[in-house]
């Protein structure tokens, strides 16, 4: 297991997972999705999580992001232990300190692009600096699309709106779950480029689950999960190196 000893937090560590266990069901029918996973995530780092289907990578991301509860272990973001929070506390933490980009875009169809982008901040009753809104919208090329509803946007544009929504609140960690999974290669590359830019230019911490080696190669490091445990880690990944590790994992 890699990185299990990196639990000492310092100023560069924005998130620490320690011996995270997630088990579904109980007794004979219990299924272990995560079996004591530990990992640290540095501020301003782009981490990709990869693994074969059923390896527990999405479950790990959900537990890190407070979208799902852990059976045991701890997840600490900043100075807050997620595992001790109520549903309301978790919702407020996600709203105030985290950002999300999902595979299926997940925009509210009844709101315009701009309303979707501002939604998280509005839920927190927080005012966004106009300059930052403009920066994000311009960087993502959404200026001309702000008044459009999601159904009037292409898949790539919808995902860019989701990225803008996630970035607008300047989250401590941006979680992306297969963000390019529903996009063609060009739109997918654009979204990855935006995430990379956010990391490089704004020191954004990004944790991304993907099955695509090309996407994983845009990250600073790749964590490989198999059978509910981290089994490998690759720093400065290249597409070929990620391919090789995945082939090895999948036998």
């Amino acid at each position: 297991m890699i990185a299990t000893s990196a639990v000492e937090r310092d100023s560069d560590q924005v998130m620490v997972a320690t011996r995270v266990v997630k088990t579904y069901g109980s007794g004979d029918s219990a299924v272990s999705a995560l079996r004591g996973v530990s990992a640290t995530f540095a501020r301003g780092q782009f981490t990709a999580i990869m693994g074969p289907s059923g390896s527990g990578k999405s479950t790990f991301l959900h537990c890190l992001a407070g979208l799902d509860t852990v059976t045991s272990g701890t997840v600490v973001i900043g100075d807050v232990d997620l595992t001790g929070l109520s549903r309301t506390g978790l919702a407020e933490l996600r709203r105030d300190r985290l950002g999300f980009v999902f595979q299926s875009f997940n925009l509210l169809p009844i709101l315009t692009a701009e309303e979707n982008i501002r939604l998280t901040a509005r839920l927190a009753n927080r005012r966004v600096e106009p300059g930052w809104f403009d920066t994000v919208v311009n960087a993502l090329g959404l200026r001309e699309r702000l008044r459009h509803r999601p159904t009037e946007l292409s898949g790539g544009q919808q995902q860019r709106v989701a990225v803008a929504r996630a970035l607008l609140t300047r989250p401590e960690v941006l979680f992306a779950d297969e963000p390019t999974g529903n996009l063609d290669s060009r739109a997918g590359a654009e979204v990855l480029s935006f995430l990379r830019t956010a990391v490089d230019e704004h020191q954004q911490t990004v944790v991304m689950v993907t099955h695509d080696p090309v996407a994983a190669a845009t990250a600073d490091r790749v964590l490989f999960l198999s059978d509910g445990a981290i089994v490998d880690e690759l720093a400065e990944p290249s597409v070929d190196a990620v391919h090789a590790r995945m082939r090895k994992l999948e036998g």
Partner: protein
Amino acid sequence: MGNPLWLIARRSFAEGWVRLVATLLAALGSIALIAGSLQFALRSQEAVSGGDASEYSRADVLVQGGAVDPEDVYGAPDGRVRLDQLTSRPGVAAAAGDASVAVTASRTSGQAIMAAAEGRTLLRPWVSDPQLNPYQLDAGRAPAADGEVAVVRHLARAGELNVGDTMTLTLPHETRQVRVSGIVNVQGRGAVAAGDLVLASPETVQRAAMLPAGTWQSVWVKAAPGVPAEQLRGELARDLGKAVTVRTAASVRQAQLAAASGEGTTIAGIVGMLASVAIFVGMFVVANTFGTLVRQRTRRLALLGAIGATPRQIARLIRLEALVLGAIASVGGVLAGFPVAELIIRLFARDGFDVSGSDPQTGWIALTLPALAGILVTQGAAWQAAYRARSVSPVQALRSTVAEPRERRLPGCCSAARS
């Protein structure tokens, strides 16, 4: 963007309103029934509470011929009383003969005019002595000749009669045309506890009641100044013997009030029943719809939870949508309550309980109470759905890769017909 929850609730309602039409109509119908029942109750109260208006308001003592059933406050006495027995007695300031004959009043078209509430229409003599006369003229003048009558305001309104119009009176032994010479109120009311009154000259009434000259079914007595009514009653009872029943006018008025209040209890029961049915139906339909709505919007609610809406905010979203529905249904329901009340009134009038002569009620109780009930019913009905929405797990936003479908703009049957 304003409040995001309000915006989402409004847009969700605007987008899904066609599907909500059935629910909206059910809620509106429920509120209309509540408003209609209340309207009916208030109008009944106004009509029945002719009950607190009494033709005996100026009299002190009533001398009624024969024995009188104290339970039957509106029954005509079965004996006779001579007026001159009383006029010259010490302690009596004034006396007036009274008789009542049940009649049916009809328009000239032949359509019967129903009496107020559950009352009857009675032919009574006009009382000319100002010390005893309880009838205040709203229009016209007192009946002066045979063939002229004054009618109470309710009868005039129910029969759409004005001064100078002709109406038909069906008496026990004859039917005759009479002319309305005046319209009166009694203590400000359009009717009395007994029902509607048609006031004719004493001679006309005497003849209709087939009373010998100088005799009446009862005599109204005004006590002389300084003579208590109870004292006068005692003296008259002692002197006139068992051929008459002597009662204070106050005791008769009291008995009439008690009878009216019993009537009010019955109406309250009916209204309570109608309102309960309305509330039950409204809550059932709205609760079902909002339950379905939450199930259909699980992903949307989960997404909101995932990006940071607290469980309380998610529940509030459902309640806001219910509030929009409730507000629209309340406004529509209160307006629809007026025709509903007319329908209820018409149905009750067929059974002899006619309050159609009363005015539609537009006070704050008649308007605000059903609207408030509508908001409470829809909020109460959406409560469980809101509670369920709170517990939607944010992970459910990620489970399906299929984007949430747009809400159907047409109901199922229309969509099916279109495809």
